[in-house]
């Protein structure tokens, strides 16, 4: 049963639509990956849901949390959801922490706001959270400023801050993109461990399918402000149906295979101001024909339990071959 339900969510910046009707359900405790290239609307979906977009953004549609509507709700109502029910961490951890406040104070703010903890109790809890996310000698370092920590540690602190409100859902918006490969793996492990310990649901936004597969139960692939495919992680890896998803897999280096050139997806994500007619992926798609350039495909259920928005999805045998 979904506790967060997004229906027909649309966002336009200064009249230019960037999100074209997103439907997404998140059940309690599950981890969902949101995949796609930069600029396809992954982050915007959740920033819109939490009312974090700048004023020039026009948001329509519906986002409900346990039946309570968030789009168009009062500022106070949305503030009560942020941090307490749905927390969010961001791509660039070093600049996401306020440089002029000690980290203990920044975590303490959440503790005071959502759990009423102050003074020594808040401090003890902040130290416990820092310990939990793996900051060494937390009791000593709680009074340091963000610039005294590395990028990976700043992301741990961001995670501690997000956990402070004991949220039901954590949105991790490209949490490892700005970090070194070894640190990325540590943060992914940490997120996976915390999810199991706390039982919170997680939305993992990333362009890295490998990272998504290590954390998530199912994945949703977005392209140019639309969902183009969704499936269980296993099914998606075994047999991606949308040519775009397939392209994302082909662009991952395979450590076991012989040395071969990676196959990038030619071209770039279209400018939202000048979307191509028909399927937005058609100009880059090797399978597209004239029909794809006129009509827009809807998301349709598939035999594997997933959904795909493509007139000519990659048929199953060919998919098996691709991974044989």
């Amino acid at each position, binding site marked *: 049963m979904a506790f967060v339900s997004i229906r027909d969510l649309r966002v336009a910046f200064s009249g230019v639509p960037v999100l074209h009707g997103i439907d997404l359900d998140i059940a309690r405790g599950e981890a969902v990956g949101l995949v796609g290239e930069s600029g396809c609307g992954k982050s915007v979906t959740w920033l819109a849901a939490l009312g*974090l977009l700048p004023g020039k953004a026009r948001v329509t549609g519906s986002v409900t949390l346990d039946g309570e509507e968030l789009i168009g709700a009062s500022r106070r109502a949305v503030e009560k*959801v942020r941090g307490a029910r749905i927390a969010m961490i961001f791509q660039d951890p070093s600049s996401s922490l*306020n*440089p002029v406040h000690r980290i203990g104070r920044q975590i303490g703010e959440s503790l005071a*706001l959502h759990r009423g903890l102050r003074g020594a109790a808040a401090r003890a809890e902040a130290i416990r959270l820092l310990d939990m996310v793996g900051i060494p000698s937390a009791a000593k370092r709680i009074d340091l400023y963000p610039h005294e920590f590395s990028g990976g540690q700043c992301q741990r602190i*961001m995670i501690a801050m997000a956990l402070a409100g004991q949220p039901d859902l954590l949105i991790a918006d490209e949490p490892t993109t700005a970090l070194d490969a070894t640190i990325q793996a540590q943060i992914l492990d940490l997120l996976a461990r915390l999810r199991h310990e706390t039982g919170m649901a997680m939305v993992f936004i990333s362009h890295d399918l490998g990272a998504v597969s290590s954390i998530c139960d199912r994945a949703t692939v977005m392209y140019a402000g639309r969902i183009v495919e969704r499936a269980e992680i296993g099914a998606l890896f075994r047999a991606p149906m949308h040519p775009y998803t397939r392209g994302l897999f082909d662009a991952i280096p395979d450590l076991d295979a012989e040395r071969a050139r990676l196959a990038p997806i030619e071209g770039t994500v279209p400018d939202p101001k000048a979307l191509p007619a028909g399927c937005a992926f058609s100009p880059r798609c090797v399978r597209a024909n004239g029909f794809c350039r006129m009509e827009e495909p809807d998301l349709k259920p598939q035999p594997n339990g997933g959904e795909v928005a493509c007139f000519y999805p990659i048929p199953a045998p060919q998919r098996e071959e691709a991974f044989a």
Partner: protein
Amino acid sequence: MIRFVFLKLARALLTILLVMTFAFVVLRLSGDPAQIMLGPDAPQDAIDAFRARWGFDDPLWRQYLAYLGQILRGDFGVSMRDGSAAIDLVMERVPATLALTVPALVLKLAIGIPAGVYAALHRESIADRGVIMASIFGFTIPSFVLGLVLVLIFSITFDLLPSGGQDTWRHAILPILTMSIGGIGILARFSRSAMIEVLGQPYIRTAMAKGLPWRDVVWRHALPNAAVPIVTLVGFMLGSLIAGAVVVESIFSWPGVGRLIVVSVANRDLAVVQCLLLVIAATMVIANLLVDFTYGLLDPRLRSARPAH
């Protein structure tokens, strides 16, 4: 931290020394004080006597060393016009100038910063556009024009306020207004852009994502960060408390430091001009020091950092 303070102090002293030296040399190379003081028709022996009396016959370096020695003993020289101590002449004018510049600074801060912050928080609203327009008007109109316009309106047309002099507090209103309007405009404009810059930072989004009420996001997270650039500008304004009123004091016949500068420079009253420049340089340097230390208080990253050169 001690190293930081020590370096800043050393630089401040060096700045003052450079200003003193520069003033000393330029004043002596740009005209003969004896000629100017005694007039073009003065007899040669009077000029010679004057030069001998004030030591202008010595080589420049010896005059300079003597001057430095005097300063170190706390002797700032005497006026060549009436023989009174230069420092006394300067100091008796300072309160009159501060009576204008301090209220003007308070007005600049009290109106400029809130107006700029309000505009930034209501970006592209009518209030924002109003603030931008008013601030452009404020800082583009020169004070000598503004002063005359205010006199025209408030003194001549409506006869509400006096146009010059220093007799009552009402005499101070027009000079203070003239001085503060430009500063209010600059500060409003500057606070607005500083605040807009900070509001676009990722940590503001973090603070909002945390669930903080908007009021707390602004007061606890945005303003302390926006304060850093604003302090720079306020420091500059603080530094011009003594010397910033030259034009306005002349327009409104206000007997402050600014008037003294104009008169002493015209007369080549060397000791008084040097003393004035020393006091002005010291004010600027102290204001700069305050700014540097305030940076350290506001932004922890600047506390441990070595001073940038």
